[in-house]
């Protein structure tokens, strides 16, 4: 029915809820139908934001609300500690929206999450939405439509563009996961694709990649060996110059590594159709789904 966020009514807290972004998106999530049961801001315990109770600590929030997932809007210098607090308090899914978390911290956080059996999504991404179930993050509520397409993306707004295109074409999505644009991310493209393969409701997968790193090449390898569902890919940054960080910390061609060409070639060799523009994605999806 979806990946990662699969439980309707999953109790969610927002860490950093009293901030500008935190409070806005807590309300947006509620409007989407997410069961936002509380927020956390140290020192603001006992207050409330748009009817959502605020706690001093995740421990308090979990104790009072039974929260199982958290969305983190805490600024980068404090975000790693907020994530550890969530994990230590028994939260098993932590969606990190915060950008500019040093990758050194993420390396350790990711290992710690693995040790403690928690899953991280992000950082520096729009979060995850399972259509009809819950939204944990900042994707616009309006772009989704229930349907059979699983979307995994390294991007934020480009994801909205593509999801919107898919929805408008009359298709629709199971889960849309923005894994984040950093060098080290909690949930990888590779994992997401494997999960979509396992998910019964997902009939086809869209992978939105970009320059930098080798996640797409490794994903292509997985698709070749383990995925029998149709996959359509899009790669941003075909015309990006080498050695320049294109906004995302992870979007950089270093030496001859991480080029769009390399990724496109890897996908094509794995039998994945690579769209040349967002509007082509639903066209290719229809073709692929029709031929299954």
């Amino acid at each position, binding site marked *: 029915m979806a990946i990662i966020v699969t439980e309707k009514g999953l109790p969610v807290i927002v860490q950093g809820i009293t901030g500008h*972004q935190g409070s806005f998106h807590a309300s947006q999530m509620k409007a989407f139908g997410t069961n936002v049961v509380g927020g956390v801001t140290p020192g603001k315990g006992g207050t409330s934001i748009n009817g959502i109770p605020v706690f001093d600590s995740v421990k308090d929030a979990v104790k009072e609300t039974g929260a199982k997932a958290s969305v983190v809007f805490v600024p*980068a*210098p404090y975000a790693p500690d907020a994530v550890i607090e969530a994990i230590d308090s028994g939260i098993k899914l932590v969606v990190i929206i915060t950008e*500019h*978390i*040093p*990758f*050194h911290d993420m*390396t*350790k956080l*990711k*290992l710690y999450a693995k040790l403690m059996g928690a899953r991280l999504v992000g950082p520096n991404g*729009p979060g995850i939405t399972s259509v009809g179930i819950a939204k944990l993050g*900042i*994707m*616009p509520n*309006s*772009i989704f439509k229930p349907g059979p397409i699983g979307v995994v*993306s*390294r*991007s*934020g*707004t*480009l*994801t*909205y*563009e593509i999801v*919107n295109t898919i929805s408008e074409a009359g298709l629709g999505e199971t889960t849309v996961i923005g894994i984040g*644009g950093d*060098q*080290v991310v909690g949930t990888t493209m590779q994992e997401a694709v494997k999960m979509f393969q396992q998910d019964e409701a997902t009939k086809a997968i869209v992978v*939105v990649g*970009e*320059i*930098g*790193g*080798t*996640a797409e090449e*490794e994903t292509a390898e997985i698709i070749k060996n383990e995925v029998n569902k149709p996959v359509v890919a*899009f790669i*941003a*940054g*075909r*015309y*990006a*110059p080498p*050695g*320049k*960080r*294109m*906004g*995302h*910390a*992870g*979007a950089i061609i270093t*030496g001859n590594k991480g080029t769009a060409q390399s990724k496109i070639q890897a996908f094509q060799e794995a039998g994945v159709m690579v769209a*040349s*523009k*967002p*509007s082509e994605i639903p066209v290719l999806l229809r073709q692929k789904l029709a031929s299954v």
Partner: protein
Amino acid sequence: MVDLLEYEGKSIFKEYGIPVPDFKVVSDEKDIQDFNEKMVIKAQVPTGGRGKRGGVRIVNNKEEAIRAMNEIKNINFDGYKADKFILEKAYEIKKELYISVTLDRSVEMPVVLASAEGGVDINSVPQEKIYKKPINPFIGVTEYTKRELSKFLGLSEYDAQEIGRILVSLYNIYDKLDASLVEINPLGLTNNGLIALDSKITIEDDALFRHKEMPIRYFGLDEIEIEAKKKGLAFVKLEGDIGIIANGAGLNMATIDLIAQAGGRPANFFDLGGTDDPEKVIQAIELASKVTNKVLFINIFGGVTRCDTVARGVVKAINELKPKFKLVVRIRGANEEEGRKILLENGIDSMLNLDDAVDRVIKLAGE
């Protein structure tokens, strides 16, 4: 990213116990004292291949050193001129090795890379000649890794101890300074042990808040890129004439790709980011104007950044700046109707469909 110069890196090496030659940093004739031994003078520039361009010279006395320095000062290193120099003893080197600690995005951990083929670009060394091993940050450098490393490099027992200590120091620098790369290339093998003949340390931008002591460097950046960076904006100058503003890095890259695929020439990458302040939009248009010759393409998919905010900013900017270039605005997402209305009321036509917008941009750019 902050790339430290050789002398800055070597000072850090020294502090962390990595053997480096006794060096002096000189920038003027009067900094150079009498000497009478084989020394080397090296331009302190943040570029590779300075040796090939004559930026590294052997000198035997004060006069030669001054002459060399003055000559090097005239060399153009990828647009950079040397104003600082390292003057240090020239060692008898038996062998040049390579060692670094860097993030491996694939294993999502730091790795040590090492090779007995040092002194060259590590990317040109075949994989099987490179020792590569992850360092788990919860554990640090293990004893067995030190043994593997020295065996791989074919070191003597004495040097094995030393390379172990050097590896620990490199990892400590990586970890404590939030570096993305800590490299010794070449690591000289002499009759008296190992010595770091060069240094390369790169500090991650995102971690600079923890390292106020680090210099801020803009090497390799265009003037407008520096201006953007100072304002905390993500801007990359390209070679074309079509200015681009989009919100989000991925959408930006995709927009550039679409323009280029359609035969246009994008002038820049420019991520507006998430904002609800029209003033930010005005600032952005002002900056983009500086690289835009023909058309400015504003492509927004509203989420955190709402379309009406963008519209208000666009209207104000156009009225204030009265630009000579043409404008194509495409807005979708949050508050798109209100945004379109605001633009229309001010005589600015906007588009909803991305492909159509790209066509329009190409058409206008060709006029």
